[in-house]
């Protein structure tokens, strides 16, 4: 059992690395890169959502800002793409800190509303500020690898997103094993109680919010360099944000690999719908229905189903008194 649980991730990692060479065509490399991108974003989302229970439907704001930041730095200032990617992500994180201070003051549903407001706001700004962003016509970003053909670019970005995913997983894992992570989980369970135990909940939440925004912004920047053309309506769409939520919930927000598993199901399914049904809007209905079903019947996700401990309280009540008899002199 132990060997299986250690070996399985290694095997999957090896498979992921070999994936572009295993598939027969570049379309599947493209679809793979897209899936890994969503997996990285969902895992980053889970840095906030999974630990603290603050569900953000507006994380596409950070995706879009990261994308536009990188694109603008490259096109307007002629900054090398690596620098643009990093600087843009840092700027977005700083922005997230400012937003976070206001946003995490409210809990539960109010927080979700704020996150929706955030992404709508960013969408308005980017579309309205035509002179800088090109408005609703979009922004063209030159490819960082002009020597490569389209398929080779897909391969490069497949590995770039894979590295980002690995980084996000590593950070999630590290946080989950730290005292910081224990504090974040305590916030999810009972925020006032955590505060009374000395946990600076406000600072914790803002930190988690920023960390989560950082990796999503990096994904956005990579996306800008990869696709080369940014459409504000797409990158700031609530749909991207809801994909992150759906993937995480479906896989299981309490598990390291939950969002990854969710992405492996949802992203290919989305691509399949696109091919099978064409450019209709019915894929929205499919996404919506899956979300409804997950929320109703599997709110803890697939992994929780698989790893569920045996049902019912594991400690019989009377054992407390028995223990008391033993320790009371």
């Amino acid at each position, binding site marked *: 059992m132990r060997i299986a649980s250690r070996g399985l991730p290694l095997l999957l990692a090896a498979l992921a690395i070999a994936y572009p060479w295993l598939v027969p065509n570049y379309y599947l490399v493209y679809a793979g890169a897209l899936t890994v991108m969503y997996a990285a974003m969902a895992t980053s989302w889970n840095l906030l959502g999974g630990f603290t229970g603050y569900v953000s439907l507006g994380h596409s704001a950070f995706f879009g800002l990261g994308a536009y930041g990188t694109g603008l730095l490259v096109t307007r200032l002629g900054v090398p793409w690596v620098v643009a990617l990093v600087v843009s992500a840092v700027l977005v994180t700083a922005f997230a800190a400012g937003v976070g201070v206001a946003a995490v003051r409210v809990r539960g549903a109010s927080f979700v509303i704020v996150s929706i407001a955030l992404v709508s706001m960013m969408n308005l700004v980017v579309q309205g500020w035509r002179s800088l962003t090109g408005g609703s016509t979009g922004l063209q970003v030159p490819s960082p690898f002009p020597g490569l053909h389209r398929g080779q670019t897909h391969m490069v970005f497949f590995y770039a997103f894979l590295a980002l995913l690995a980084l996000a997983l590593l950070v999630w894992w590290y946080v989950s094993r730290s005292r910081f992570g224990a504090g974040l989980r*305590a916030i999810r369970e009972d925020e006032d*109680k955590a*505060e009374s135990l*000395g*946990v600076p*909940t406000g600072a914790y939440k803002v930190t988690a919010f920023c960390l989560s925004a950082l990796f999503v912004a990096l994904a956005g920047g990579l996306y800008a360099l990869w696709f080369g053309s940014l459409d504000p309506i797409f990158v700031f769409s609530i749909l991207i944000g809801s994909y992150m939520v759906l993937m995480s919930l479906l896989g299981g927000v309490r598990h390291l690999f939950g969002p990854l598993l969710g992405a492996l199901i949802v992203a290919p399914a989305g691509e399949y719908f696109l091919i099978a049904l064409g450019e209709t809007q019915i894929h929205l209905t499919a996404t919506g229905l899956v979300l409804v079903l997950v929320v109703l019947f599997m709110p803890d996700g697939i992994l929780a189903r698989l790893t569920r401990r045996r049902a019912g309280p*594991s400690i019989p009540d009377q054992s*407390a*008194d028995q223990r008391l008899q033993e320790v009371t002199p």
Partner: protein
Amino acid sequence: MSSLRTEGLTKAFGGVRAVDGATVELRDGRINGLIGPNGSGKTTFFNIVTGMIRPDAGRVLYRDRDITRHTPHRVAHAGIGRTFQLCRVFPRLTVLENMLVAVRRTRLRELLAGLRDRGEVERARHWLRRMGIEHLEDAEARDLSYGQQKLLELAAVLMAEPDLILLDEPAGGVNPALIDRIAGLVRDLNAEGRTFLVVEHNMDLVMGMCDHVIVFDRGAPIAEGPPSVVREDPRVLEAYLGV
């Protein structure tokens, strides 16, 4: 030395003054009882002292430092711990994880430290052993009985190493054997130098355990002194019987 001192604390909800000019002084090293009829403002007083509610007026001083309007976690860092009336633990964390939530001071190095940091885990096991629930460390807190949860809550508060501990109805909803056990623990912890302020309706427990009793009525203390004196005070009887 003075442990906790409040001066003229006042808090109104709508038109009702839940706490009304409460001036209280606790001396270090005592077990203080806080009694009074329902609705006399005891829990609101707790909430103000621990920073969960902001007072309309008045000051809270701890060891002569003004902590009025401090956020709850800063109050905790100052050395005040508390339990809640309806015992509150983190239901879906394990017992050991519950113990490791408490933060004594905000230092980056400590926050990034691993959860299984040996020193902290040893401290956690020490307190779990003293509560008699060390065998449950891997169980999720929601699977514990109510009494076990009460012990866990107290143990988790002790992880923050408070000098003053506010207990809100420690005997509420637990069986007599456990009440005796909790009373014994409080006495032991007090003998080790911790000061207590205990809100409790079980008069036998209060009178048997406390060195000093403060009686609240309508949001302010109306009498205080050793249990034997307070028990005979006519104002106390009047407050309870509601004449």
